[in-house]
């Protein structure tokens, strides 16, 4: 009887551990789908942005071509999550450079269409930042579970491997403080 109770308890613990690992893995996948959705929103905005600014930005032609090229790579079907993460980093930095360059063209800065695009891009960047933070938390929980005793034993048997987090630069951690900018 005692042996039976011990076996039953062990089975329950294994089932709970298994379910918790699967839930953590699904949470990572689920949130990655959220990131994918906002990244696509940003990709849709890129052609508009490029066509609005290219006639003014002769010196920045290289960066405009690069962002278009990166977009077409990111839109290819079947690329891995790791590739998406790497491309996102490059697109973020390329778009950042375009936005900094816009500051040098007063006509462009005052253009209604560009202003709207800039605001839309800020909104999407805020959504991407939120999705990245949610993803990183889910990945951390998942990585902890597959490395910590005793769940690591089961995770090994299930062939679960570590997942990569999005790296967020210090600058991106801070929101733009418009008030402070005007005061400068």
């Amino acid at each position, binding site marked *: 009887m005692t042996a039976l109770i011990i076996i039953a308890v062990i089975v329950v613990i294994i089932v709970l551990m298994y379910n918790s690992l699967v839930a953590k893995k699904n949470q990572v996948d689920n*949130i990655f789908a*959220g990131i994918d959705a906002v990244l696509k929103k940003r990709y849709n905005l890129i052609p508009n942005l490029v066509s609005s600014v290219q006639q003014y930005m002769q010196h920045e032609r290289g960066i405009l071509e690069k962002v278009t090229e990166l977009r077409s790579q990111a839109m290819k079907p079947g690329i891995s999550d790791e590739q998406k993460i790497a491309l996102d980093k490059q697109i973020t930095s390329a778009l950042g450079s375009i936005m900094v360059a816009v500051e040098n063209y007063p006509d462009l800065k005052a253009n209604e269409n560009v202003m709207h695009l800039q*605001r839309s891009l*800020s909104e999407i960047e805020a959504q991407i*930042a939120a*999705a990245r933070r*949610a993803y990183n938390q889910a990945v951390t929980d998942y990585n902890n579970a597959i490395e910590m005793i005793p769940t690591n034993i089961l995770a090994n048997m299930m062939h679960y491997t570590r997942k990569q987090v999005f790296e967020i630069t210090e600058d991106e*951690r801070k929101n733009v403080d418009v008030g402070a900018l005007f005061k400068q």
Partner: protein
Amino acid sequence: MKSASELTDYYYTELYDSLQELEQERHAVRKKVLTLFGILGALSLLIIAFIYNSCHCFNESFIWIGVGATAIGGFGYRMLVSGYRSGFKEKIIRPLIEAIEKELHYAPDAFIPQSLFQFSRLFDKRVDRFRGNDLVRGQIDGISLQFSDIHAEHRSRDSKGRTHWSTIFQGLFIVADFNKHFKGRTLILPDLAENLFGSYIGGMLQSRNFTKDQLVKMDDPAFEKAFVVYGTDQIEARYILTHTMMQRLLKLKQDTKSKIYVSFNGEKIMIAVDYDKDLFEPTVFASLLSIEQAMGYIRTLRSSIGIVEELKLNEKLWSKV
């Protein structure tokens, strides 16, 4: 918005005549209140002495005499201070609110509707009695804002069938527009479990709740220590709670020195500040001219109205995508 020191100057200079008038009234009211309490106390003692003399025993009636005297005292107190109280609100609180922001309207006897309080989903218990006062509403920098004192209570019965009232929330309830677009619900509550049981067991207890939405772990240790976040959407909760917003909410908690509950629901931000007392009520036993009293009123009013500025709710940086 005027600074606290400008408002203190305004309180003592512009409102001086009203303060003098009210201070005289306060002395008269205080005298009446003390007389009433004295008579009630003496009468109660006389009745108790009379009963004790006749039976030489202590019985339940003594308790009832105490209860009766307290009830009559409470009722009498409210009657005696009611004129002074409304004078104080009209002559001091209203001008102070207008001095802070002209676009705000003040209704001393109105309060935030119960439906809005319940819509926040901040408190799980059933609300059986809902009261409030001092409603302030209007626009600040194009953001609609309203707040009032609220007292929400829950009724329960013990095994003997006696009714008990317990406070669910008493304090300031603030509702304002939020400039980000979101569909779900995010709640920020004081972190009791982690403070009581530590981060590991507390965190486990929080994640295994059946009455709330998903637990959202935030990536700011100081914020995570002070608050627990529940939300319908992990990404949306972080979209609302940026690092800057978390710091602003932490500062708000430090400034008010009270428990703070925040709800983001229906494109509104709703904040409950648990002061555990009725604010903006006039004092009868301390002078209106004392700096502590004046600063108390000014600080609370300014921080409630300043929420829009403090949390930068008036900044509209984005276009809806």
